[in-house]
């Protein structure tokens, strides 16, 4: 006699554990009044250079800290530490993305004041980070002018999970014949209505506008939370 398999409905999100941790983190940040911003991009887009500028610009007015993910080195944390804000490295080993529990353990034993802003720089990867909620309030996806205007079409999921797009290295736009209109169309195609900002870490172009955007997003978010 052959037994017939029995079918049982379960309905469980595979990343349930990550989502539970992310929700707990979000709640913790909410209570502390901390606005949490994550950054994702390909390797080499300039996340670290951009973040270094942002941290330096914010540190006089706000309590700011940063977590930075990397597969193997703490080079980025060393660079970010030049901005003189607390920085902690998360070395992921063979894992190609940050997960909520890595953020949670990095925050454990890290004595921080009640922060206004916490930045989380993900591992350079436009694929894997898209599936993992880190408890952040704002997810920024960065692309540089040297990467090609169709990058959003090649990595639609990460653009879909992000809240705003930042185009970096805009000072090189003319040299690489970057077509801003095509890039903008690609972004809007995968994520209609997405905010797109252009910056140059080298010349400082667009940084003030970005900081205004960030501030407005924070205010909006805190107002939303208060409801």
């Amino acid at each position, binding site marked *: 006699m052959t*037994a017939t*398999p*029995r*079918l*049982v*409905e*379960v*309905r*469980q*999100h*595979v*990343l349930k*554990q990550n989502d539970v941790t992310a929700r707990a983190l979000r709640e913790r940040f909410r209570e502390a009044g901390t606005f949490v911003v994550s950054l994702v991009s390909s390797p080499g887009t300039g996340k670290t250079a951009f973040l270094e500028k942002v941290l330096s610009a914010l540190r006089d007015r706000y309590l700011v800290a940063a977590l930075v993910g990397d597969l193997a080195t703490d080079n980025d944390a060393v660079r970010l530490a030049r901005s003189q804000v607390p920085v902690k490295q998360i070395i992921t080993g063979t*894992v*190609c*993305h940050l997960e909520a529990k890595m953020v949670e353990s990095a925050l454990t034993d890290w004595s921080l004041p009640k922060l206004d802003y916490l930045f989380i720089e993900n591992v350079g990867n436009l*694929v*894997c980070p*898209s*599936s993992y909620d880190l408890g952040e309030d704002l997810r920024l996806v960065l692309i540089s002018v040297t990467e090609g205007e169709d990058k959003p*079409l090649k990595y*639609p*999921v*990460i653009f*879909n*999970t992000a809240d705003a797009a930042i185009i970096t290295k805009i000072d090189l736009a003319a040299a690489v014949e970057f077509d801003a209109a095509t890039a903008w169309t690609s972004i*809007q*195609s*995968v*994520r*209609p*209505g*997405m905010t797109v900002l252009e910056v140059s870490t080298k010349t400082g172009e667009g940084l003030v506008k970005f900081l205004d955007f960030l501030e407005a997003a924070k205010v909006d978010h805190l107002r939303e939370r208060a409801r």
Partner: protein
Amino acid sequence: MHELSIAVSILEMAEEEAGRQGAARVTAVHLKLGPLSGVVREALLSAYDLARESAPPALTGSELRIEATPLRANCPTCRRVVAIVSVQHQCCADCGTPTPDVVSGNELEVFALEFL
């Protein structure tokens, strides 16, 4: 390549559920997978094969069956849930209005298990 860790999570969930159900063996795991999940079907199937080799005996004979879920969103023009052209062109398949208001397509969900 995060499909391997996803495959391991699926096997762990199946093992846990088998324990709860008092089942000796899991023969199939049914998964809903959306185009916005960030997980590639073929990569996940290969990863599952690999992860299964080092899974507990109750799972070594299990098969992963993936059901692809469609991308659907609220269309502000048609005022209803509609099919979306594609992840690259996120607009209403009926009228062409762009819409970011996705209602399905993020699924990465085990929805059923078969036990023996």
